[in-house]
């Protein structure tokens, strides 16, 4: 049953991604001012949304772990697996954001990178979650999960700074396209391509997230069984 669900999900994701690619590259009209390069937004923004979603899942997992670790250790392990999976997949999507951004910036701003507030803070966010993954690698044993959960909360305190930075500080990054100033927003002809790509990349991210979660659960169970066998021996 589980395998069938994953199979269907994979098929739906594949179809969505092909359709999203067609919409982004062929169906959406050329931008009046930017030309073809604006199509990066169909990958840049959905990846950013996915990255934020997965970092949020990771944070929820970490808070859940801290709350449950004393009286429900089994549930706490589940939370921790979500925290790890969210952080890893989030870092991948954040990397995509940081790569597609400069590709667009090279054409639009005539420079790869600028130390604008939003760029800087997205990079900081990426660094924080990489350091989270490093901590998980360096620290060992059950205390590692607690320490990592605490670091995750500190990392998440940075997220509001990231999100608000574009509104607080005037910078190079475009003003918010959606829900920003009056007069912002996309041409209606571009919206379907944008929506399909958000859907496709979220479906893809959730697929990877779920797979990563199951791998982590398996390795947790294996570790627990090894401990039990060592105790019995």
């Amino acid at each position, binding site marked *: 049953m589980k395998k069938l669900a994953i199979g269907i999900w994979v098929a739906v994701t594949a179809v969505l991604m092909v359709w999203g690619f067609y919409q982004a590259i062929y169906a959406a009209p050329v931008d009046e001012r930017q030309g073809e390069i604006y199509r990066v937004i169909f990958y840049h923004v959905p990846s950013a949304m996915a990255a934020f979603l997965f970092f949020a899942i990771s944070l929820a997992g970490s808070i859940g772990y*801290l709350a449950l670790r004393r009286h429900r250790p089994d549930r706490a392990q589940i939370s921790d697996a979500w925290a790890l999976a969210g952080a890893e997949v989030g870092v991948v999507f954040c990397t995509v954001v940081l790569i597609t951004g400069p590709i667009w910036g090279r054409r639009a701003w005539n420079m790869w990178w600028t130390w604008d507030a939003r760029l*800087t*803070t997205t990079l*900081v966010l990426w*660094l*924080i979650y*990489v*350091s*989270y993954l*490093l*901590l998980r690698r*360096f*620290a*060992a044993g*059950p*205390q*590692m999960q*607690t*320490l990592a959960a*605490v*670091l995750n*909360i*500190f*990392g998440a*305190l*940075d997220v509001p*700074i990231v999100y608000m930075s574009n509104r607080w500080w005037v910078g190079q990054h475009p003003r918010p396209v959606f829900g920003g100033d009056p007069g912002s927003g996309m041409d209606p002809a571009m919206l379907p391509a944008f929506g399909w790509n958000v859907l496709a990349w979220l479906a893809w991210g959730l697929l990877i997230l779920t797979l990563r979660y199951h791998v982590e659960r398996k390795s947790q169970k294996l570790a627990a069984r090894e401990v039990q066998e060592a105790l019995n021996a």
Partner: protein
Amino acid sequence: MTRALWSHLVKDLRIEWRSLDAIVSMLFFSGLVVVLFSLAFDPRGAFSQQIAGGVLCVATLFASVSALNQAWAREIRHQVLDAQRMAPTPGAELFLAKVLANFLFVTLVQAILAPVFIVFYNLRIEGQAWLLAVVLPLGTWALVANGTFFAALSIRSRNRELLLPLILFPIFIPALLAMVQATTAILTGESDPSLWIKMLAGYDIIFTTASLLLFDVVFNAE
């Protein structure tokens, strides 16, 4: 101020007074960073005004990591850390005492370093100089509060001396940015540092509160 906090603070200050380990190593290290930067960038004229704030902050940052690594490592000998863990006082007091002690050390180092700095970089403070007395303590507090917290966190890992900068620097970047921008604004007198000072104060409040709330979790992690 409660008794537990006070006795932790007095103990740390006494150890430092007798050995001077942290202050001497920080002072020499940050002095080295200042010399290295002035050789690397050849600071003359208006350019020195522009980079001096950044160099001062980064020098403080590098120097205090060396001291913060020792802040908890020193307690491992004779199982002092385990004794502190068993003590029936809230861990937040111990944490606050450590932060206050290290804050005093780093501030002292900055106070000694500042004249050297002004000489080496031929600085003239164009803005309101007294604001530096607000910016530098706020930035130092952000550095020391986070640094003490993450030092307690990384003490539980393999290669802890390596891990502290790896997790401290990313979290500290927003505060470093604000600190550098505010210091540069004061030195050059070209812009108003008040937004950056507010941001530093906000950062301090947010992260100190989080540290106080979560310190027991980290300290007693098993």
